Each structure stands twice: as structure tokens, then as C-alpha cells.
């Protein structure tokens, strides 16, 4: 009964939404979300219940194996001796890189705000370079930078300066902090530019009068930052944090190459999403059923984490309708 009530309310809501102007404005975005997100998620969820492998759709797409792929995944996670290292690495990687990305982006945006316009533009462009460089090229640069021999930039410089007499193997020799530092550094450098752009555009929308008035009252850069800029950037910080959290959980491309090239330790250099990728695609036959199950689990984890972040940061207060007393 209650269910029916809910359904009829939902249908009513949907009809009135479709008739409203809002639906027409949202149509292009909705179309993209449905085609590129909702439908693929639906197909993935479906695939996760089939034994699909080697892309043999003709043969496997209509067979059902129930929860077998999920069971397989659970079995691997609970039996793999490397899993502890991988989960620990995931937590540290996501937490620290997230902090670097958000605080770094904020720092850069605010720093450049107080700079002359030309210097600000140039320095922002510099920070965008990692994002513009193709992943393989960018990873290769850091591969040679951290390489554990005299061909590695760091080692070669330190040896020339006479600070060390034989090369240090950061990614494989200093466990776990060595590999963690490398993957956090490499990904952090790519990530900060995103926050920087969002925060820069947000800051440029803050009325200049507020800052000028504060200056007249004798406020320094630090006071302006603390009392004016950061409070006004709150919603942007929430957005960037949530967005970066979700993308860090699912990112593996740079890490994949660094592990593949043996620059960083396999266990303390792999995150959960890389583990999922390797399990499903890397070795042996490509198991799309298992990959789909792992993907569904990732979507669920991301959804829960995303909701928690939004809740913690008070997202609903931002979308609440204005009270009209301004």
C-alpha cells in the first residue's frame, strides 16, 4: 500500500517534471548522463551476472551465473596475501592525495590571486602542464626522475653533489613510504590543477569591494584569506573534495604504468582500482563478467563515500531554497 503510494507520487512527480520548463533546460545534460552513465551502469550490472569473457557476446551474454562473479571477487579479496598492503595503500593514497589536491589547489588559487595578472597566468599554465601531458609521457618523465640507478634524475643529482655514494631505490627499497610518496606525488601534481581552476574562477567572482574594504580596514593577505576568501569558497571546496575523492578512488592509469615498469613496489604501489583492473584484464583471458562485478562494487563504494562526504560537509544547506530574508 505504502509502496503504491510512493510509486504514484513518483510517477506524478515525473510527469510534472517532464511538463516543466526545467526538463527542457536539463534535457541535453540528462541525455548525456543517461547515454554515457546510466545505460553503461545498467549494462555493467547486467554483465556482472553473466560469465562473459574474451568478448564472446554471442556465447555468454545470455547465460546467467548469479552471484558467481561477486563471490569470486570476495574470495580473492579475502585470500590474497597482498590485499592488506593494497587496501592500506588505497586509504593512504586517497586520503593524502585528496588533501594535496584540495589544499594545493586552494593554495595556488589564493596565491595567484595576490599576484600580478601576468605572473598568475604563467604560473597557472605551468601547473596545468601535468594534466595536458599524455599519461604515458608524463609517467615516463617521473619514471626516469625516480629511477633507482644513476640514470634516474634524483639519484644522479644527489650523487653528483656527493650526498649519496650509491643510488637509492625509493619506489622499491623504502617500504612503504617510498612507493606511497611516489604515487602520491605523481597523482597530486596532476590533481591540483583541477582545484586551482575551480577556485580561481570562484575567487574572481567574489566582489572586489569586500577585499578592498578589508584592506582599508588594515587587513593583511592572511586575514583576507582566512576571513573572506575561504568562507566564501566553502561550496566550491565541498564540490572539489567530493569530485576528487571519487576520481581518486577510481584512478589507476599513472599508477598502472609505474607498477608495470617496476618503479614502485607491486603491493605498496597498487590501489584497489588497479587491483581490479589487473585482476579482470591484465593477466590471462579477459574476464569481462568479473570486471563488471568489480566495477559495480566500485560504483557502490563511490556512491556511499560521495554521499557521506556531501552529508559531512552540509551539501543540502547549499541547495536549500533561499529563505528570502537577504
Amino acid at each position, binding site marked *: 500500500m505504502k509502496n503504491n503510494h510512493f510509486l504514484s507520487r513518483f510517477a506524478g512527480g515525473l510527469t510534472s517534471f517532464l511538463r516543466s520548463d526545467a526538463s527542457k533546460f536539463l534535457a541535453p545534460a540528462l541525455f548525456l548522463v543517461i547515454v554515457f552513465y546510466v545505460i553503461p551502469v545498467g549494462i555493467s550490472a547486467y554483465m556482472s551476472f553473466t560469465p562473459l569473457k*574474451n*568478448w*564472446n*557476446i*554471442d*556465447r555468454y551474454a545470455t547465460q546467467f551465473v548469479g552471484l558467481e562473479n561477486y*563471490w*569470486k571477487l570476495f*574470495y*580473492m579479496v579475502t*585470500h*590474497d*596475501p*597482498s*590485499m592488506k598492503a593494497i587496501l592500506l595503500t588505497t586509504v593512504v593514497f586517497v586520503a593524502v592525495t585528496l588533501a594535496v589536491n584540495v589544499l594545493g589547489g586552494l593554495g595556488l588559487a589564493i596565491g595567484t590571486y595576490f599576484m600580478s595578472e601576468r605572473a598568475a597566468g604563467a604560473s597557472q599554465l605551468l601547473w596545468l602542464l601535468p594534466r595536458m601531458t599524455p599519461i604515458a609521457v608524463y609517467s615516463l618523465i617521473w619514471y626516469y626522475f625516480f*629511477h*633507482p*640507478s644513476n*640514470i634516474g634524475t634524483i639519484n644522479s643529482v644527489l650523487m653528483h653533489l656527493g650526498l649519496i655514494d650509491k643510488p637509492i*631505490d625509493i*619506489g*622499491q627499497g623504502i*617500504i612503504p613510504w617510498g612507493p606511497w610518496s611516489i604515487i602520491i606525488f605523481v597523482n597530486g601534481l596532476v590533481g591540483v590543477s583541477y582545484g586551482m581552476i575551480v577556485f580561481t574562477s570562484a575567487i574572481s567572482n567574489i566582489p572586489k569591494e569586500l577585499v578592498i574594504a578589508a584592506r582599508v580596514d588594515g587587513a593583511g593577505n592572511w586575514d583576507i584569506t582566512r576571513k573572506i576568501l575561504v568562507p566564501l569558497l566553502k561550496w566550491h571546496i565541498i564540490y572539489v573534495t567530493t569530485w576528487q575523492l571519487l576520481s581518486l578512488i577510481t584512478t589507476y592509469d599513472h599508477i598502472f604504468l609505474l607498477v*608495470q*615498469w*617496476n*618503479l614502485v613496489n*607491486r603491493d605498496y604501489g597498487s590501489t584497489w582500482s588497479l587491483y581490479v583492473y589487473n*585482476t579482470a584484464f*591484465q*593477466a*590471462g*583471458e*579477459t*574476464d569481462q563478467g568479473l570486471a563488471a562485478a568489480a566495477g559495480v562494487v566500485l560504483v557502490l563504494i563511490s556512491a556511499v563515500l560521495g554521499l557521506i562526504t556531501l552529508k559531512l560537509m552540509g551539501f543540502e544547506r547549499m541547495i536549500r531554497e533561499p529563505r528570502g530574508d537577504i
Partner: protein
Amino acid sequence: MGRAVSKVAVAVAIVVIVAAVGAALYLTRPGAPEEVAKVELTGNLEQDIINVGKALQAAGISEVRYSVWSGGDPNSVMRVYGIVEAAARIMKIWGENGINVRISVDTNYYQKPDAVYQDFVSKWALNQAPDIMANGYVYIASLADEGYILDLTPYLSKYQDFLSDFYAPVLEAMKYNGKLYGIPQDTEARPIYISKEAAACAGIDLDDLAGKVKAGQFTWSDLFNMAKQAKEAGCVEWGLIHRKGSAHPDLIQFIYAFGGSLYDEDTGKLVLDKEAVYKWFTVERAFADAGLLPHDMMSWDWGKQIHPTVVNGDAFAFIGGVWHWTEWQTKAYYHDPQTGEDRGLRPEEVEAKFYYTLFPAGEPGKQPVTLSQPFAWVINSKAGYQNPDYDRLKDIYQKLAVLLVIKASDPDIIAIHSIISSHLPVTKAGAELLQDQGFVNDLPNLPTIRSDEVRNAISDIVERTANPINIEFLMNTTYMLEYTHFTPKHPQYPKLADLFADAIDKVLRGTMTPEEAVDYLVSKINADPDLKGAVEVVGEVPTGWQFPQS
């Protein structure tokens, strides 16, 4: 009332439309396919080519299209052009017999053979996979399991003479579940290279070392002692260098050299042979602990560390492959002390610097080994799908694809590929041509090649590589095929090989003892349900086994 009438009208209209469409479909349905004369393969290649050509012409076909994909190093392009040349030769035969049918072949040559395989698999269901592919024999298992490639056994039942010219172990590698799914395209061996300069410097006599290795009199303990002697005499920085990144296939040779196995023919399961794997790990650990093998060997850089170290004489021994012989000539790994420039070695320099032998036996009583990963021609089970009237002429299109592959195995095509890519010939007739001075002298003019496309594509490579020293090297290493092993054609094998790489890395770095690493392998295998079901763990870690033994 009016509303009811209009509803009836709509219903009638729908019925009429459906009926009209149905009737149209019924009337225009394809008639029963007209019978096509069946072509039986007779085992006489020329006759079969003519019969297939006549059948195509009778069916009104004037052009047949095929696509062929393969991949690998830039010198191995005959993996696609072999088929183009075969098509030219078939068309010549047709022309001489008044058959006017053209074969056009689209080629696609990748850098990485595994990417070719991935593309084949992901495009098969979309009807975009090639008709013919040359790729590693290991893929035969999954391609055959999925029904993606033709079982060639019935097509070649009359071609026993053709098949018997292939080296038996290489042909055997093309079989899966007792059926033949591929025709060998090329193969290779993995010699151990020893620095002649380092040996001379340390006063080590290499005379007939290859013979002693062959007889099982020279084992890994002896190689260890030699490497140690060279290092202690200050002649080299390293005693042994090997590949990085993966244990497959070079390091897997240790398992065979200790008499171990990776596959159980009876159960069809992969094998983790604890004893052989333990001994392999112990040998490498002994080399690393003696300072002869780098602890971080698995993360060395191929182009900046491994090859330069070997080529510049800083390593006593190197676990390499036959193709390195020409790679050292084409890539600038060598630092010329006289001019100070980096350059490729000249053939005579490679010959002067390197001694080569089989991979020695692990311990007395065991056999020397090498390992090959032959390339196979495989034929799409939908071969010919892009041609007209496919449903009716399917059988003829498939047979023509098989004939193309047979023709691409002509001795001269095999010999040319071997010479320009430094791979070993897969047929005896191909190997004989390498010894034919007339053939070798004429090679730069490519007198046997009919297709201009092929001639243009390979003439530069032929000019650079057709050197008597390189050809002699190939002839001198062909005997190694008698000692060769193949890694299993099992869909789960790559996963297992990945675990080996992980374990040996931990052993070399000293984070695990050989025994712990074997246990680690077992727990990793048990953590993956697919792998657990596919691998049987046999044997025990031996107690009190020492290395080196003398």
C-alpha cells in the same frame, strides 16, 4: 460512436500494413541457395589452387578480399606480407590457367602482438576481425575455446607431406585438444650469451663450452663459478644479467633446466613444481648474494641499462634470445670508446664479442634447455566474411584462406623472414635454403618475390640484415630447437607467469627467502578461484639443497 469507428479503422490499417510487409518479405525471400560445386582439397597444392579458382570463377566472383594482421619488431613484417606474396603467387597460377580472379589483401602490422590478439578477440563478434592472423601460439587455446578460429585438421588431412616438413615440436605446439589450429610461422631460441672478452681477460677457456653444455656436463654451478672468477678478476661488473619485468619466458627456462614442468598433459592442468621453482629461486639468490646479479634486476631499464651493460662487456653472461644478435646491430647500445659515440655493433663485432650456448642444465643429471614461442598462422572461423555471397561460398573462401597460408609457407618466404628478422626457420626446406650460397647471394635482388608491395616493404630491411655472419649465426643456433620447451597453451598461464615475476623480484631484493617465495606463490594461487582450479601444486621444497654445488 465516431471514436469507436476510428479505432476500428486504425486496427484495420495496422493489420493491412503488417500483412503487406509479410507478403512482400515472403515473395522476396532468398530462394534455396544454388548448389555450388564442392571443392575437395587433394593435397596437391597447385591443383587445389586451380580448383578453388575455377569454383570462384564459376560462381561469378572476380575479386576476393582478405585481411591479415600481425605484430612484432619492425623487421618481422613478413608476418603479414607473407600472405600478400602468397596471394601474388596464387594469382600467377590462376593466370596461367585462364582463371580471372583477383585476391586483394589488406594488411595491418602492429608493434605489439598482444594488442593484435586483444583486437582480434574484441572485434570478432562485430565481424571486424581479420581473416588471417599471425600471432603467438599461446593464444590458440582461448581462440579455439571461443570458436574464433578454424580447426585446420580436416583441411590438411591430405597435406601430410607439407606438415611433415615442419620441425615436429613446433608443429606439436600448434595443436590443442588433439586438433591442429595453426601453421607455424616462425620460432626462436634463447641462447645464453657469454662475453668472449671477459672470458679472455679472466683466463677462462670457452673452447667447446657449447658442446659441454649440450652434453649436460656444464651446469649452472659451473656458470656461477666462471662468472665469479670473471668478476673477481675485475673483468666485469656483473656475472649475470637477464630480462626485467616478467619471468616469462626467459626465466621460466630454469624450471625446465631443473627437470620441472609447468603443465600436466593428462589432467590438462597447469603445474607449480615446488622443487624446480625453489631451485630456480635459490640459483638467482646465490648470484645476487655474491654480487653477480643486481638485486633490482627486475626493474632495470632495457634500453638504458640491460643492453648497454651487455653490449659494452660489463656482464659475463646474459640470458638472451636469437633476435638480440641483430638488435645489437640496429640499435645504438654500444658506446664506442674510440669515437665516444653510441652506435650499433657491426656483425663482425657481435661475432667477436659473444659466445653463445644453450641454457645449461640446472644440476648434474639434468638436461640443457631453451624455450621457444613459435608464431602461428591462424584462420578466422568466419574467414572470407567480407566477400559477396558469403553464406553460399563460405567453404570455398575458407579453403582459399587455408591455401594462402600453405603458400605463405614456401621455403623461400620462410628463409627470407628468418634472415631479415633473425628468427629460426620452422621448416627443414627453409633451413636448407639458408645454407644455399646461391640463394643467399641473390637475396638482395629478391628474385623469388612476385609482389611489388612486398618487395618495396622489405628491400631496405634485406639490405641491412642479409649478412653472411648473421645467416651463419641462425644456422648455428637452429640445433637448439631440438632442446626446446614451450610454455603451456593454457588460458590461465599468463596469470601464473605474472606471479613468478612477482616472487622472483622479492627473492632478488632479499625480502623473501626462496622457500618463503614458494609459499607465497602457493598462497597467491589459492587466492584466485580460477587459478586455484587450474593449477596443481606438486613436489616439495628439498631440504639441504645447496647452490653452487661445486
